């Protein structure tokens, strides 16, 4: 629709529809429910007009000398048809346009193209992965002839492996260029190209080497034929043998819809969902190939109980009875405050709700925290405040249309791959400008994306944000930013120059970035774990809120900030009150009046005292103050900031209960282990980074011995005497929809396929709050190298290790050093290095990478066998000394 909302009328095969000006004929035809076939056209790519299958006849009303339509004998306007057929995918509709798809001319043209497409296409449909869901096959059936006039030899190519993910069968290719364009314009990888020309055109990598890219497999997804196939799925199944279920990907906070193909009780593939979900066809490498853990033979299949020394299998009832009995004893002896509940960011909101309800209403402990990675106490509502206090949130689709986007601290390639794809698409197709604040030159900071890279000193995020906010304030108040606004306290005492000195970024660059953000009418500020897990996260988040107001990213009516949590339902964990200071819906636990709604509903007082946050629980448990720990869906030994301390805590606790899919090191240390269902085995609601509620569906039958977490939690609650009687996740959600602010009135039935983004009513947003303290200046760097870490693409969390493909793509664990830094400390590419901090040391291979700044070392998170938290609390920012301990291993040795 244009600015004044006018629409144009177009008549397609006699059906008149009104569409926005500029709509393409193919899209208008869809609105008119007339089938116009397409191959090369793709919703996210600009029109190409190459395959020609969408040819139609196009005409406009004939105008007389008086500029009025000429009427035929029957009173209808006469149509002047264009002499040639036109491609519908490149022709924008005009008011009054007529389109014919079924005339002899149009039909012959389309059949001609169909025949041409089959001239060199092999007849290997019986062994083609695409067979049964092939657009060429379907359209040949719909529009093609039942015989061929092509008796000559076909042109043939050899098939080619393009790395571990993509296998190419060039003979099947119809040169629609979707793969090449998608890789270029949306992935930003340019890994594919067309070789040769004419009928010898062949898609391949530039040098015919394995694809150097994110291995996302989206080229396979958008291929309308079987020319690009995914090696992990190759020859595994026929599509009609698969049951297809659309659910939500379990990996990151983007919440992409994923279509699982299931045969028997095994997931054989994951695909995107054309025209559905936030992502549509897009999936990252984890989403597309990371489903393997679901099928893993290492999955737990029976509860484990530690009686005496070793863990041994037990029945579900035995485990429930034991856990309940021990909890009751510990509460009786040490009080409810000796029990702590940790983890839960991977659960769905129903399970998260029950987890904290079990803690607060059944056990009576305030110690609940899902944010096990945190190094400092952060208010439970800090992220919500920083992203606008519950004002209507921006969507991932808004990113494409933004003019200016500030990415703060995180590498979206690992943290939020789909958000990154949206930004690249916006940059490529719509002129979006990126400002990437990152210590490393991450993908989005590459010069090819035309953005500005603010390389700040390790750990100086708070100074950068304070300086940006100050620079934005210099430009005059954005709408709603009153001089007395309480958020100014967070940046009290900061100036742009002070921020420039602290971050090492020139003041001009800071001012320019703030100016771009301030001036843009469509903008976004994105951040993730680098902020949320920063040692100064609490004041940093308040400074971000200040930047939001100062730059106009937050206004009274909406907020254009987005936070990417570490797990698929981190947002849900915050919403459901898996934080010590907030009850579900960000109701302050300490506020007697506000918590009344829960006291009434749950039938007990919630005056539980101050809750401990995750790092405080860690310290208290290690010191022996916490006697019982219940950890769900979280390998605490890997996620806690100090591994040695977590190990001590687990060893000294009297009871450790763990809900897990696998026997993780944490589960190994537990007294009770409940095998839990994987994402594909249960239904429930998850909340993504847009605060969008999306329902997952059950794609697999429940495994023997495995139960969804809500059932485990309910069984223990019942054994503890609670009158819980939820028949399923839907019952729990009904309770949530009755009680929880922001979720009130939501109906389970409306959350498929794409639920709404929740926000508070205008008068119910979190009130602005005077900052606890202004952002503090960072201590000056100490000895050694700054230790940088962050998510990377191929591995995220423990689940990704359980498959075969992702660990293979991630290669051996490595520490990345700038070549100059490596030379300084005498380390060569591939050498073994030791990284030491006061708390401990780890060893791994060195890799040289100029994108890592000098004076630092980058160790990706979640590498198999690399336990960064063995370094203990290595300072803020963490520092390590690097030392070469061995030569590069010779290949084959």
């Amino acid at each position, binding site marked *: 629709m244009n600015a004044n909302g006018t629409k144009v009328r177009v008549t397609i095969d006699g059906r008149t529809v009104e569409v926005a000006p500029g709509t393409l004929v193919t899209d208008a035809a869809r609105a008119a429910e007339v089938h116009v076939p397409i191959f090369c056209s793709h919703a996210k790519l600009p*029109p*190409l*007009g*190459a*395959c*020609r*299958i969408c*040819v139609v006849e196009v005409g406009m009303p004939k105008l007389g000398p008086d500029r009025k339509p000429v009427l035929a004998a029957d009173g209808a306007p006469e149509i002047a048809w264009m*002499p*040639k*057929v036109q491609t519908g995918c*490149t022709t924008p509709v005009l008011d009054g346009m007529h389109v014919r798809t079924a005339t002899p001319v149009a039909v*012959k*043209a389309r059949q*001609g*193209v169909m*025949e*041409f*497409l089959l*001239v*060199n296409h092999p007849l290997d449909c019986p062994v083609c992965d695409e067979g049964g869901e092939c657009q060429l096959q379907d359209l040949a059936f719909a529009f093609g002839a039942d015989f061929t*006039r*092509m008796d*000559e*030899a076909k*042109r043939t*190519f*050899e098939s080619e492996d393009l790395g571990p993910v993509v296998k190419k069968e060039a003979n099947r290719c*119809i*040169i629609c*260029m979707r793969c090449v364009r998608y890789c270029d314009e949306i992935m930003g990888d340019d890994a594919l*190209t*067309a070789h*040769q*020309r*004419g*009928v*010898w*055109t*062949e898609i391949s990598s530039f040098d015919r080497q394995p694809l150097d890219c994110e291995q996302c497999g989206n080229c396979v997804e958008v291929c309308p034929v079987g020319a690009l196939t995914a090696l992990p799925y190759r020859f595994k199944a026929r599509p009609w043998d698969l049951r297809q279920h659309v659910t939500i990907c379990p990996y990151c906070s983007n919440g992409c819809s994923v279509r699982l193909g299931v045969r028997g009780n095994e997931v054989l593939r994951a695909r995107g969902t054309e025209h559905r979900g936030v992502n549509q066809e897009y999936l990252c490498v984890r989403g597309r190939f990371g489903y393997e853990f679901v099928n893993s033979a290492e999955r737990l299949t029976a509860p484990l109980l530690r009686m005496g020394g070793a863990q041994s299998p037990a029945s579900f009832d035995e485990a429930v009875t034991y856990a309940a009995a021990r909890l009751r004893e510990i509460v009786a002896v040490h009080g409810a405050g000796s029990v702590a509940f940790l983890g839960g960011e991977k659960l769905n909101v129903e399970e998260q709700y029950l987890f904290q309800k079990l803690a607060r209403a059944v056990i009576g402990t305030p110690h609940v925290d899902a944010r096990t990675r945190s190094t400092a106490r952060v208010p439970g509502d800090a992220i919500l405040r920083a992203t606008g206090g519950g004002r209507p949130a921006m969507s991932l689709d808004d990113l494409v249309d933004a003019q200016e986007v500030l990415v703060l601290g995180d590498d979206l390639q690992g943290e939020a791959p789909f958000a990154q794809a949206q930004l690249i698409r916006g940059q490529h197709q719509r002129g979006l400008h990126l400002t990437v604040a990152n210590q490393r030159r991450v993908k989005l900071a590459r010069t090819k994306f035309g953005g500005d890279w603010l390389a700040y000193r390790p750990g100086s995020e708070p100074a950068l944000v304070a300086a940006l906010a100050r620079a934005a304030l210099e430009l005059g108040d954005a709408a709603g930013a009153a001089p007395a606004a309480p958020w100014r306290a967070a940046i009290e005492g900061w100036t742009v120059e002070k921020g420039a000195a602290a971050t090492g970024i020139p003041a001009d660059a800071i001012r320019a970035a703030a100016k771009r953000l301030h001036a843009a009418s469509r903008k976004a500020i994105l951040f993730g774990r680098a902020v949320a897990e920063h040692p100064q996260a609490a004041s940093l988040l308040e400074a971000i809120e200040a930047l939001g107001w100062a730059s106009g990213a937050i206004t009274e009516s909406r907020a254009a900030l987005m936070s990417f949590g570490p797990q698929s339902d981190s947002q849900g964990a915050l919403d459901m009150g898996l934080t010590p200071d907030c009850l579900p819906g960000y109701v302050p636990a300490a506020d007697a009046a506000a918590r009344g709604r829960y006291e009434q509903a749950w039938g007990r007082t919630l005056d539980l005292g101050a809750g401990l946050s995750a790092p405080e629980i860690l310290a208290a448990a290690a010191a022996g103050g916490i006697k019982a720990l219940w950890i769900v869906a979280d390998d605490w030994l890997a996620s806690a900031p100090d591994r040695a301390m977590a190990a001590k805590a687990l060893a000294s606790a009297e009871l450790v209960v763990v809900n897990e899919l696998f026997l993780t090191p944490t589960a190994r240390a537990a007294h009770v282990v409940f095998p839990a269902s994987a994402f594909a085995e249960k239904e429930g609601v998850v909340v993504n980074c847009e605060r969008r509620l999306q329902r997952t569906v059950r794609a697999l039958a429940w495994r023997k011995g495995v139960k969804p977490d809500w059932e485990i939690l309910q069984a223990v609650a019942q054994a503890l005497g609670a009158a819980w009687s939820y028949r399923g996740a839907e019952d729990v959600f009904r309770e949530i929809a009755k009680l929880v602010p922001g979720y009130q009135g939501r109906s389970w039935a409306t959350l498929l396929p794409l639920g709404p983004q929740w926000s508070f009513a205008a008068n119910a947003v979190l009130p602005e709050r005077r900052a606890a303290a202004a952002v503090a200046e960072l201590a000056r760097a100490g000895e050694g190298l700054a230790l940088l870490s962050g998510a990377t693409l191929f591995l995220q969390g423990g689940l990704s290790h359980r498959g075969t493909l992702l660990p293979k793509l991630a290669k051996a664990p490595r520490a990345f050093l700038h070549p100059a830094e490596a030379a300084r400390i005498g380390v060569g590419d591939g050498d073994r290095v030791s990284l030491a901090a006061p708390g401990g040391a780890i060893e791994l291979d060195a890799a040289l990478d100029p994108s890592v700044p000098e004076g630092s070392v980058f160790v990706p998170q979640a590498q198999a066998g690399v336990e960064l938290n063995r370094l203990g609390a290595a300072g803020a920012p963490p520092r390590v000394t690097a030392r070469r301990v061995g030569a590069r291993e010779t290949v084959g040795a």
Partner: protein
Amino acid sequence: MSRRFAAGGSGFGAAQRPPGPLLFRDIDTPGLTGIDVYRAGDGYTVPSQVLGRMTPDEAIEVVKASGLRGRGGAGFPTGLKWGFVPKQTPKPKYLVCNADESEPGTFKDRELMEKNPHLLIEGMLLAAYAIQAHTGYIYLRGEFEYVQRILDRAIAEARAAKLLGDDVLGTGFAFHLHTHLGAGAYICGEETALLSSLEGYRGQPRLKPPFPAVEGLYACPTVVNNVETLMNVPHILKKGAPWFRQWGTEKSPGTKVLSVSGPVKRPGNYEVPMGIPLRTLIDAHCGGMRDGVAIKAVIPGGSSVPLLPASMLDTGLDFESMVAAGTLLGSGGVIVIDDQTCIVDALWNITRFYEHESCGKCTPCREGTYWMSEVFERLESGHGREKDIDLLWDVSDNIMGKSFCALGDAAAMPVMGAIQHFREEFEYHVRHGRCMVNRRNPARLEQRREPPREVAAAMETNT
């Protein structure tokens, strides 16, 4: 090697050729490639009359009034094209000379550039002034390396004479000119493919609209003109539109350089007023057919256009008359076919060219040219079937008007024209397994179509 080519583009001595009225008037003057000789013959006198003396719009109006039409093939009015360039735009504008002369049977631009490079530079300077472009490119076909050397030398001379650079002739107008060699693809003569190639991308045509005048090179307003078109500009701006219109017809004014090839007595480039009959060109200029052969057909505008049988030789060589006769003036590559040449052979040759040069972007052209080529090969090898003739027609028809750019039409039109006029030769091929007429050795049928060398090598290694 290049020296031999550089010596005479048309392949025969200048003395035998009558001077042309306009572009060929002085073209055989010795040393004309040097700026001094060019200046001695009134060269570079126009910029000082135009730059700063005429407004750009006035210059465009003169060219519009002259009726000059594009000489690259499509015949689009040049002044109109210039007028499409937006006047108020923050973007830079570009002038691009299309010197990717690749149309089989066409070799006029080569001779024009080889012998009179300064006229092109002068024309580009004036055109650039008219559209207010400050950068120009001459996109040469890959094989024109020696032409590039001639042009580069001329550009250097012009720059030294302050005819190019930041301040042309002290008028404050800046114009920089560069040459660029293509990489050997016919499709890059298509203006949008040319622009893609010039930008460093794969040479494939782009969607229109937006037309280059609005979004061309680097998505900036761009005019793409043919060599011959630009060379007419100095003459028009110097002497005026009415003077220019003394030649040619009302709708096709001016002269046209025609490249005549085939068994005529004097093949070569001729500049003639538009509209003279084809027969006059062949008989009067080219000295008629060689002894012992008679004319059978003429392809009047390069290999892309339908042929005309000998019965239609009175057709005038101008845009309108050619269209009326069912063909096109095209690029002016007049290919004469004698009665000893098999039409099926000739068309097979042409079809193989288009199969080889199809860029592969759109389905009908990519697959259709391959298929036609295969069918021709069977006809040629004596295994043709009656239905193959209709099949060829229908495949051509399915390409015609359905391809992305004009290359598909260029491949289809000649085949359809040949079947229309010489169906009996196709039928003879089917029935007798050989040509109805053929003065050449049938052994050439041994030439089989091979995949590109690189692909063949790759296939070799794979097996």
